[in-house]
């Protein structure tokens, strides 16, 4: 089941540079929440703080709280590795491991975490995850082929399968369709609609139509000027955001007047 995320007073820094300022947002469980906004406003950065992936960049850190079902991810006794096992992530560009087959890619999360898994359990898990990613029928006959041999859209769904195979409660998606053609995009969007039954989904997208199609809630990030920190400008359910936004900047943005 999905879990809810509450972000309180989040400030994100790269070194001494304040990249994103004072974000407060409540993300509901089992809903799709979309982050939109002009480039450079920090929406991907915020997304990456939700599973502590931003820390990989040297010098990046943040202050404030991110609560996953009430537990602060940044509490001193929480290990970032444990966070990432609970909060999965799908990236902008499909990135299956080039040394692994389709099957090994799906099992990568479990295997790399050194869990012993029997052959039959592994078979079940692969089928479950690939069915979940709506890829099973396309690849079930060639599970031992390399994962990089698939098409872009299939690779991205393979990455989703790989992420759900570790059974997280939240799935973060960083512009998952930006490198895909329209048909593959449609397939991934359908999949996201299916997945929200079991996961809380947060998706960053550049494409406002996409946000309107798939999101239940939409957060609009903005920045005052280049070099200024980004901030959360406006947060509303998707219908309000796109039909009747109560925020001037958001209204300008969704109607296509800037960004």
């Amino acid at each position, binding site marked *: *089941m999905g879990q809810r995320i509450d972000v309180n007073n989040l400030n994100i820094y790269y070194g001494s540079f304040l990249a994103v300022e004072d974000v407060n947002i409540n993300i509901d469980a089992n809903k799709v929440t979309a982050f939109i906004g002009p480039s450079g406003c920090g929406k991907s950065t915020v997304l990456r703080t939700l599973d502590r992936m931003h820390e990989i960049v040297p010098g990046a850190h943040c202050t404030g709280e991110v609560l*996953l*079902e009430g*537990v602060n*991810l940044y509490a001193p006794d929480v290990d970032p590795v*444990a*966070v990432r096992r*609970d909060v999965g992530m799908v990236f902008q560009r499909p990135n299956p491991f080039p040394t692994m087959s389709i099957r090994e890619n799906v099992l990568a999360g479990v295997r790399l975490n050194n869990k012993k898994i029997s052959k039959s359990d592994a078979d079940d898990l692969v089928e479950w995850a690939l069915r979940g990613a709506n890829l099973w029928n396309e690849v079930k006959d060639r599970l031992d082929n390399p994962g990089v041999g698939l098409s872009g859209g299939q690779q991205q769904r393979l990455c989703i399968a790989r992420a759900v195979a570790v059974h997280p409660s939240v799935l973060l998606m960083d512009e998952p369709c930006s490198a895909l053609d329209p048909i593959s995009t449609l397939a991934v969007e359908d999949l996201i609609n299916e997945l929200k039954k079991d996961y809380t989904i947060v998706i960053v997208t550049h494409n406002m139509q996409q946000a309107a199609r798939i999101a239940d809630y939409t957060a609009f990030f903005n920045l005052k000027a280049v070099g200024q920190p980004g901030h959360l400008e406006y947060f509303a359910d998707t219908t309000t955001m796109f039909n009747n936004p109560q925020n001037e900047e958001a209204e300008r943005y969704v109607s296509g007047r800037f960004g």
Partner: protein
Amino acid sequence: MSTTSTGPSTGPTSTLTKPVSGKQVDKVFRAIAYACGILILVVLGAVALFLLFRAWPLIGGDQSAVSETISSFTGGKATNFWAYVGPLLFGTVLVAALALAIAFFVAIGIALFISHYAPKKLAAALSYVVDLLAAIPSVIYGLWGGLVLVPAIYPFWNWVATYLGWIPIFAGPAANPSRTVATVAVVLAIMILPIITSITRDIFLQTPRLQEEAALALGATKWEMVKLAVLPFGKSGVISASMLGLGRALGETMAVLMILSPGLKYSFRLLQASQDQTIAANIAAQYPEANELGVSVLIGTGLVLFVITFLVNFLARKITEKKAVK
């Protein structure tokens, strides 16, 4: 979607704060990586320290014994360490500088040929040949130099000595067999050719295409394009590659040992035998017969060589580093 969705659904608190498996291994691995990084510093320090320690009798030991040993090495020509290492250092630098002078233009020519003149397929094959040259062991260069080149090159040196003998460095008569500084320099030039070529080739290949096209669009010929765009761009790379080549030539042992008929003079007579000797070849030549103190003396000369090559290499890297920062 629902076949086995009975995965771990324990409370969030327990999964997040539970100790992560593999954390200990993670720390150990990190420690090993750091240790190996630091080991490089330690090893280089150890090289300097052990050499210094072993060469200590030169400074702290019985000075009369030291001068006796040195005079036995040199047949009475030198009695203190600096008088001994001086001509050796001179010979080392002379041979290496000559080798570099010979190799420099040829290496740049080959690099240009591979990067800008040869057809693509041929260029790939040539790159391979250059790497092949680099892979041939120095002892084989020595063997070839001593048995093939020395007799083959004598007529040429003889011609040079006859017609260019009025230039002091080519003063005759040319030694036969030509186990001379000039022949050694040719072999060393062949040996350092590949390293200079491969580095300059890589730099030339990185010349921004736009700059090359800009030159050509102004109506420049190919050579003018090379002169306008490629050479200025590759300048610092060429310099640092030459320094690396020089460093290699300074330290080369076997080819010198197997070809040169050594002497202990400060001599520029390139075509005559028994004029100069290099530090590295001298160590290898004297080592088998040296006693305890003699070994200390040789290690002392080795320390001088280490310092020189260290400086040359350090300088070469500094030049490239500055370029990279830009």
